[in-house]
């Protein structure tokens, strides 16, 4: 017994070392980026590892005002929150019917939605530009939001229907026996039970849409309609002209990063369980 313990402990130490190093990198990234955003260019390049000696908050002022990140932040917040709300309004009823409804072709229709998870988004780039141009919503936040909701549907419906399927059917039957209408069963019985699942997919989609930039890169042209991620991408593209203001760039990265990291600190368990609920059943 003692021998096995002795043999096990260096192994355990190694396990802690490996996991600690990999996990530590995530923490290091967040802290290092924030430190970098508070330095001036010479400080960043001269002492990339040290704490900023005297924090340079001008980087943030510059990012927020001259680089219009205030504007991008509001754009992102608006388009992402509205998209998530609209997504729930559309996806929750659909997922409910697709998991609890009894009609011919239910399973096929569900698979048809799930199949959308396999469609590579870049395939849709050009047709989406053509389509939104015809509808007159290209280069608008409304158009971007509609596309966000549509593209998020397959994953969202997949996770939500899994959630609805896991609810006991006795509740439904009991409510029907008590004289509830279809609508009442949904509204008073199933929806409250599904609320945690809906909240989880809302958070996951909020983070995913907040971070995405490929669709906005394709659909948004006007600087005033840029989202935050797209704003940072355009800052990266402009770097070669401005001579590389890295601290300013890291200030932008901090601005895009802080909201999702803050959410994650409080809701990591919930977000992870939401993703694994979708992938592993």
């Amino acid at each position: 017994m003692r021998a096995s313990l002795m043999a096990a402990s260096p192994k355990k130490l190694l396990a802690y070392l490996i996991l600690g190093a990999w996990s530590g990198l995530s923490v290091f990234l967040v802290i290092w980026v924030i430190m970098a955003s508070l330095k001036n260019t010479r400080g960043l390049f001269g002492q990339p590892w040290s704490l900023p000696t005297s924090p340079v908050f001008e980087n943030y002022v510059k990012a927020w005002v001259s680089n219009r990140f205030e504007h991008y932040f509001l754009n992102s917040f608006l388009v992402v929150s509205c998209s998530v709300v609209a997504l729930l309004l559309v996806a929750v009823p659909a997922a409910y019917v697709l998991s609890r409804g009894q009609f011919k072709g239910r399973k096929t229709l569900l698979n048809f939605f799930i199949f959308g998870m396999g469609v590579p988004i870049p395939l849709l780039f050009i047709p989406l530009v053509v389509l939104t141009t015809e509808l007159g919503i290209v280069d608008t936040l409304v158009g971007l939001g509609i596309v966000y909701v549509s593209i998020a549907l397959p994953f969202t419906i997949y996770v939500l229907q899994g959630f609805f399927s896991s609810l006991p059917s006795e509740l439904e039957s009991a409510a029907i026996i008590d004289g509830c209408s279809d609508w009442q069963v949904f509204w008073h019985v199933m929806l409250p039970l599904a609320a945690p699942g809906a909240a989880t997919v809302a958070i996951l989609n909020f983070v995913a849409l907040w971070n995405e930039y490929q669709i906005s890169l394709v659909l948004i042209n006007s600087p005033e309609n840029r989202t935050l991620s797209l704003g940072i991408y355009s800052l990266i593209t402009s770097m070669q002209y401005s001579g590389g203001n890295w601290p300013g760039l890291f200030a932008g990265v901090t601005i895009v990063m802080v909201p999702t990291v803050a959410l994650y600190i409080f809701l990591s368990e919930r977000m992870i369980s939401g993703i694994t609920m979708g992938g592993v059943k």
Partner: protein
Amino acid sequence: MRRRMVAVFLAPALILYLGFVVLPALQAFYLSFFQTSGFKDQEKWVGFGNYVQLAGDPVFWLAVTHMLLILLVGGVAVFGFAFLFTMLINSGLWGKKLFRALIFMPNIIAMVGLSTFWSFVFMPRYGLLTNFFKSLGLDSLASVAWTAPEHVFWAMLVGVVWIFAGFFTILILAGADKIPTDMFDAARIEGASNRQMFRLITVPMIWDVIVITLVLWVIEAIKMMEYPYAFGGPNIDQNLYTPAIYLFIMGFGQRDPVYQLGYATAIGVAMFVFTIVAVLIVSGVSRRERVEF
């Protein structure tokens, strides 16, 4: 549940999904048979012309090579780490939830942010990596130009592996957590090592999860764009092209507009076909090797 409720509940989702996902996907197939810059009067039917051109386009094949390297080399690394972390986290350590949360964390940070950080890590002369090697006195490693054409793809892949290893760790871990613990207890009494238990219990028991994660990885790897594109910056090196990036550049241009919309969508269709073929291969292979209990 009455018909009308089914219809009313499904209609909005169906309309959006059909209108903004299915219809554009079908339209992409149609568009790929034309030569067009987006103006209706200039559309010219070329049949399979775009595909013929694609087959002889060295840049496209370069992008496909990168896609395969991400899929296979990246995949081995991603799943290697994911399995290693699952095994280590489940070997009875303290702080399981903390490790899991931190390993997954890159996935909740914007890709542009992650790629900016890694660009600074690999930056020539001033980058964190060069700096690190210099401080250790490893001058030969410190003088390597990580963003030079021959290295830049691998520098990019490091970031991709780092991100996706975390993603797949939580999925595989969640699968492993569903295995009844008495199986491990029984194996431990029989004197099985951690590695044996992992190979002989965990892997066969979570085979379904492994197949799902492989399918997800195939889908992700083939459509990859955001990380390498931001990593490449303004004048992206062709050594970083993936099919999705090449599609974007052919469709919308890097800085000078190209607007070969038909050609670009043909790349998208090729990606879609790759995805379907790869998913079929994964599910075919995994079915044959399935361990029955």
